[in-house]
């Protein structure tokens, strides 16, 4: 199911290579040029350019009135974005880490996400909430969570999670133009930051000019016939690495990048599993009550006989993300665990 106001359009003729972070910034820049009601606010988004480079150069370009450094007061400035959106502006508010949602969750799930419903559709809240997610760099239990399952569980906000530069730009343009609140969650490990582990897929070709990636459409990023791997964000990269490794062993895995949790593209999942008969769900968020259960139920709700073997889930095992490198890697869904899971479903 696709719910988006803007059809995909590619007006650019050429392309250029960008990191995911720069692709995000380019999308915001294009939309700020196009629409004077778009503005960005958050902590350290001005001269610093965003802790994860999500706003690099934007304040220099658009000034302090449209790219605004806020006090460390998430309830106040996310709520401010809500009120401005209600009055017809199109704010983008950055919650520096998804882990900080606790200090401002009321504004997010009781206000941003519910106003349209409570008003019987009479009040729109066209805003974007951006936030950084994910671990892998020893930042500990309060700075490494994904939590997208939590946002997706609470009704009234769309939730998008790009894994590469192309989607980062297209999804950002879609998010800004959407009349609903959209939570845009970017994994630090896919941003292509100069101070993190180098990830080759964090840089890629991006079309010039504006284009949009529809919210609610998954992408089949690798076709295969033996098993379906459903995942998102940085785990897409690990899943592709696993699939390439298994190809040498005669196992042909299909990899689906969800790109959106809300709306969830169940049709693409069903189509793939009806072909492969096997499902592995990879999720860097906590396992219980989360994305992996929801994706599994997408199959069992429709036709459990579609599955030729039990679903394998490769998730964070409901553990706060540990600090020590060896411990952290033990809970993250990385290539080795994904490969083992694919082996498991294929051999079962």
């Amino acid at each position, binding site marked *: 199911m696709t*719910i988006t106001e803007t059809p995909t359009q590619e007006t650019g003729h050429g392309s250029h290579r960008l990191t995911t972070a720069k692709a995000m910034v380019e999308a915001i820049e294009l939309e700020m040029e196009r629409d004077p009601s778009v503005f960005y606010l958050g902590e350290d988004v001005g001269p610093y350019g965003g802790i994860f480079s999500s706003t690099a150069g934007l304040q220099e370009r658009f000034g302090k*009135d449209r790219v605004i450094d*806020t*006090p460390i*007061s998430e*309830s*106040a*400035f*996310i*709520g*401010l*974005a*809500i*009120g*401005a*959106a*209600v*009055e*017809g*502006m199109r*704010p983008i508010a950055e919650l520096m880490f998804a882990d900080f949602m606790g*200090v401002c969750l*009321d*504004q997010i799930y*009781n*206000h941003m996400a*519910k*106003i*349209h*419903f*409570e*008003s*019987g*559709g*009479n*009040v*729109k809240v066209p805003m974007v909430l951006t936030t950084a997610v994910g671990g892998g760099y020893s930042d500990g239990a309060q700075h490494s969570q994904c939590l997208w399952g939590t946002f997706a569980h609470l*009704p*009234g906000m*769309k939730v998008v999670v790009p894994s590469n530069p192309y989607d980062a730009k297209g999804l950002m343009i879609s998010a800004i133009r959407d*009349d*609903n609140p959209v939570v845009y969650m970017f994994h630090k490990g896919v941003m292509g930051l100069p101070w993190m582990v180098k990830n080759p897929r964090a840089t890629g070709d991006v079309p010039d000019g504006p284009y949009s990636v529809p919210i609610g459409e998954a992408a089949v990023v690798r076709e295969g016939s033996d098993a379906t791997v459903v995942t998102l964000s940085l785990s897409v990269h690990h899943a592709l690495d696993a699939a390439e490794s298994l190809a040498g062993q005669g196992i042909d895995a299909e990899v689906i990048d969800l790109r959106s949790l809300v709306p969830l593209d169940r049709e693409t999942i069903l189509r793939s599993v009806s072909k492969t008969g096997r499902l592995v769900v990879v999720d860097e968020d906590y396992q219980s009550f989360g994305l992996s259960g929801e994706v599994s139920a997408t199959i069992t709700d429709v036709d459990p006989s579609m599955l030729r073997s039990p679903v394998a889930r490769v998730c964070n095992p409901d553990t706060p993300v540990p600090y020590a490198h060896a411990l952290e890697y033990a809970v993250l869904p990385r290539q080795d665990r994904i490969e083992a899971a694919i082996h498991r479903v294929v051999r079962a």
Partner: protein
Amino acid sequence: MSTTAHDTPQSLALDPATRLALYRTMVLARTFEEAVLREYHADKGPGFDIGKGLVPGEMHLAAGQEPVAAGVCAHLTGDDAVTATHRPHHFAIAHGVDLDKMTAEIFGRETGLGRGRGGHMHLFDPTVHFSCSGIIAEGYPPALGQAYAFKQKGTGRVAVAVTGEGAANQGAFHESLNLAALWQLPVVFVVEDNDWAISVPRDASTSVPSNASRGAAYNMPAERVENDVEAIYAAADRAVARARAGQGPTLLEVHTVRLWGHFEGDAQGYRPELADVPSMDPIPRYEQRLRDEGVLDDAVIARTRQEAQARVEQAIAFAKDSPVPDPATASSYVFS
């Protein structure tokens, strides 16, 4: 101009038409809530089942606090914004929210402000930029954004954000005051101090005797006034003028009174002054004053009450005659 809790606020000499308008607003709000009270309790028995009846759920009525809404909203137009609390009816009425649709919403009807999805704590009327929230203090941050939008458009419009004194201990209250003062946003922060955060008295929850003193922490002009509609009118006049002139936010605390329980069904056993509460009713007091000063007579009083009664009965009838929402549409409006 800046005043503190210890200053004596100046009053304005009000013309009779303005005084009558303030009186009418208060009477309409009270008449409305008396009618809601009647309808609310009509089918709750036997025993008391909060989920039963034409008006189900919690019900928070603002009787006694009408001067705050009347005095503040007298300075606003429908282009200005108000974010009210879980006890919103008096502000909604004073700000000109559509009474029929508001009543229908409280009755859970498809014709309501939120098509029956919101309820009495979640009233949204975008035609007059009115909203309210069931979570205390959390109506403050969105008001910042409305004020920000107004400031960007350069229109001189203002946002009024309302909380109770209990909510003034929430983080969102303090974050909002700081940000509004820092960015000089056109906001009037109103605190309705009715002495009781549900059952907890102010002196058991708040470290300062007056929230107006907290304005100093944010370099913000602040006043505290008693539950006198003309004193509130005068203080709000200063605050709204300051906001319209681009001089930033003001904190205005009114020491008001909650005549009835926190919610309907609240026996108020915690409240030692309960027997004296009816004598604190601001409406008869104002009525008597206007009568003494020759602004009102029996005929005007009777006509004002009759008009309010007729208007309210019309709204109640509209609500009762309206269809209930189709259960098949329960999940509509999650997204646009």
